[in-house]
């Protein structure tokens, strides 16, 4: 018996799982979510442990199986949430608070969206000016824009999400024709990141660029690198599809891990992230759109104006994700 206790204690002592805290597996960068996690610890006294992983997180949780120390998973987009749910790695988030905080189209059975971001079309202030409200994503394929468009890789989740939404609305064949048109209009091979595209507008490489909304806020307020302000100020942020089905929105979200060892604390954290305080922090610090109704956008984001959002069920976008990737290969968008 004594032997058993000693072995048990020894094994327990070297075990990897930390039990009393909430264990966060995150696709989102530490510095983006740490402020919210710190606020949570301050309010509840519950500590958080984080692992930030960009690739392969679902595989890690899957392999860890019932022993996984993961309590919640934070993701940057819907496809990662879907992957977790499809692989059976999550469980239902049963919380009245969460249901009250987040509208129905922003949550699934086993996940909740925490923020949303618009996929914008930026245009050169000097050479193009503000785009008309009739401008759509589909217009980017028109011959008149030949050699004028910049974007990052078609395989980046932000672009895949947009392409998947076009497939969902227009059908696969139309989406393919559209993507071919956009490729033909590119000013340069897809490269760099969203900020780089706005910079390219300033440098005159292209007149139009695709980019997420929060980068615009991040650039406009960058005191350390004031040149980024100049990039942003050379471009106009436009919200396409205002006369059709609205601007494409992608979401970041959270799921509750299937074997969460600290389920109660994890639920508390999810509730905290969907409540006013954290939602306001997402809005003010990261310039994202809060998903809880009644939480104000940051002043800067609000100054870009009200706009119509694409309210398609995000599950439908997620379903077309792999089709989108295959289209990118088929039209050799990046090559």
């Amino acid at each position, binding site marked *: 018996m004594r032997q058993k206790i000693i072995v048990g204690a020894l*094994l327990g002592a070297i*075990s990897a799982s930390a039990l009393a805290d909430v264990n966060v597996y995150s696709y989102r960068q*530490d510095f983006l979510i740490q402020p919210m996690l710190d606020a949570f610890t301050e309010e509840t006294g519950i500590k958080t442990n984080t692992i930030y992983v960009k690739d392969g997180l679902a595989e890690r949780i899957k392999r*860890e199986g019932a022993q996984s120390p993961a309590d919640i998973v934070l993701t940057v987009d819907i496809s990662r949430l879907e992957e977790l749910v499809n692989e059976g790695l999550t469980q239902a988030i049963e919380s009245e608070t969460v249901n009250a905080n987040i509208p129905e189209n922003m949550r699934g059975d086993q996940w909740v969206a925490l923020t949303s971001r618009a996929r914008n079309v930026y245009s050169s202030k000097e050479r193009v000016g503000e785009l008309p409200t009739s401008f759509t994503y589909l217009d980017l394929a028109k011959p008149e824009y030949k050699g004028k468009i910049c974007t990052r890789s078609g395989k980046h989740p932000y672009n895949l999400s947009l392409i998947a939404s076009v497939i969902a609305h227009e059908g696969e064949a139309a989406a393919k024709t559209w993507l071919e048109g956009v490729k033909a209009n590119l000013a340069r091979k897809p490269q760099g990141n969203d900020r780089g595209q706005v910079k390219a507008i300033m440098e005159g490489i292209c007149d139009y660029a695709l980019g997420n909304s929060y*980068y615009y806020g991040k650039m406009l307020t960058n005191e350390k690198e004031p040149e980024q302000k100049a990039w942003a100020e050379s471009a106009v942020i436009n919200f396409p599809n205002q006369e059709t089905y609205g601007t494409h929105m992608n979401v970041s979200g959270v799921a509750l891990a299937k074997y969460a060892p600290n389920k109660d604390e994890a639920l508390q954290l999810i509730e905290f992230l969907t409540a006013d305080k954290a939602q306001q922090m997402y809005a003010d610090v990261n310039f994202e759109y809060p998903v809880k109704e009644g939480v104000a956008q940051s002043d800067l984001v609000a100054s870009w104006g009200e706009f119509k959002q694409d309210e398609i069920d995000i599950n439908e976008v997620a379903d077309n994700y792999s089709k989108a990737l295959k289209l990118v290969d088929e039209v050799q968008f990046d090559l």
Partner: protein
Amino acid sequence: MKSNSTSNTLTGIAKAWPPLAWGLSLLLCAPIIALLVVAFSDYSDNFRHLYDTVLFIYMRNSLILLLGVCTMAVIWGVPSAWLISRFEFPARRILRWALLLPMAMPAYLVAFVYTDLLDYAGPIQIALRDWFGWQNASDYWFVDMRTMGGAIFVLSLVFSPYVYWLVSLNFSEQSQSLIHAARLLGRSEAQVFYKVMLPLARPAIAVGCTLVGMETLADYGTVAYFSVWHMTTAVYDTWLQLFDLPLAAKLSSLLLLFVVVLITLEKRGRRHMRFYSERQTPMLRVPLTGAKAWLATAWCALVVLLGFALPALWLSTQAVRYFADTDWPAFARMGIDTLKVAFSVASMAVIIAFILQGYARLRPKRGNWTARLASLGYAIPGTVLAIGVLIVTTSIDHAINAFTNASGYGNVGLLLSGTLFAMALAFSCRFAAIGIGAVDAGMSKMPHSYDDCAYLNGYSHSETARKIWLPLLRNSLLTAFLLIFLESMKELSAALLLRPFNVELLSTYIYQYMTAERFEVAALPALLMVVIGLPPVLLLTYSMDKKNAQLP
């Protein structure tokens, strides 16, 4: 003479050698075996899609990249090795070790710096436009970094120290009498280089190219900066975007096959060669004068400038901007963690390399197999290898938990995966090849007559290993340690997936900010990483000096 000390039968402690070597070799290739099992566990039509669309373009790109980077690494590395070992010229003593500096610089950083500097919107092109009054891109031609050429340029610079270093070691050990004879027969220095030194350096160049080639094939992030897509891209896409791990594992196996061919060809090429000479005198360097001397200095300086100084300078200017905001305690923690990981991985890998190569010397046929198996991990993209490690460690963890539960000790959780062990295993799988290569090179320079002498004098196998091999291999082992230390410090992909809670390494921290498009924050830790890499680089030069005095 003890009768039990013939070279045919292993006795005493040496009996444990074969099972140990096989065990280690199996441990290191277990993740790959796990991947192979996954590869053939499921079939999907995604392969058809790849085959119909981009697969051949990716294959072609991989091949061009591989050949390009190897060729360029030889162009950077071999002439500088020749100049440094054969001639005396201004600043030679500094350049001799400075040429190793690019090793302290992670490829992804150098890639970032060059794309940023030379892009249309980068400072150089902006300055040129201001100067000459050009309005837009159509007014002038400028090199485009986001191309295959750009990728080859940067990767070859960063990996060139492998070639430089292996070839200079080789040059410094070449027989002086051959060179003297060639000179006496009226050959010019250039002819001596082409006809004598270069052919003798063939194995060193081959080993260097193999290392460079494996690094290149395994790279994903750096090449992606240049918007160049190759086979590793296909591996990532199928796994992360199509969620098709079996196909990703199949594609990795294809890469692996390529590497096996590469290693076999390299071994075959020098199968019947003996590269040691029984008597050696240190190389007498020929003094260069006038323009020739300055040209030699300029060439070596150019390699250092492009591969190290320019990126380091750029990092410094960026680091200055955020200096005041630096969280020093956090940096210190990350620095120490990075050092710990790199140190333990390097120590482990060196011990493994010695055991495996020792076995290969005792039992060439089987031993070469174990060494080859253990080397396979080097060419697998880090994240994919990490998945293999994850499969292995979690399987063991589940078995342990099943056992403790059954025997009443209860759940013990994850003991291997999710701890530093898993990360260290992944790193060792990835870099064992470097250690094995370095020790192999050292072993191949020890004539077998040494062993025979030892046996004749009554030494047992383990005594021979301890008293003859270890001292003679001291520098090879030190070199292996330093190289693996440098590589582990920079390794990123496996660390990203396998690190335990709340552990941050310099590489993961830098990466996090680079992908968030906030490079300015990453510059200081990047610089810190380079600084940590400096002592190992200096020690490498020291081991290069020692090499001359090592053999009788």
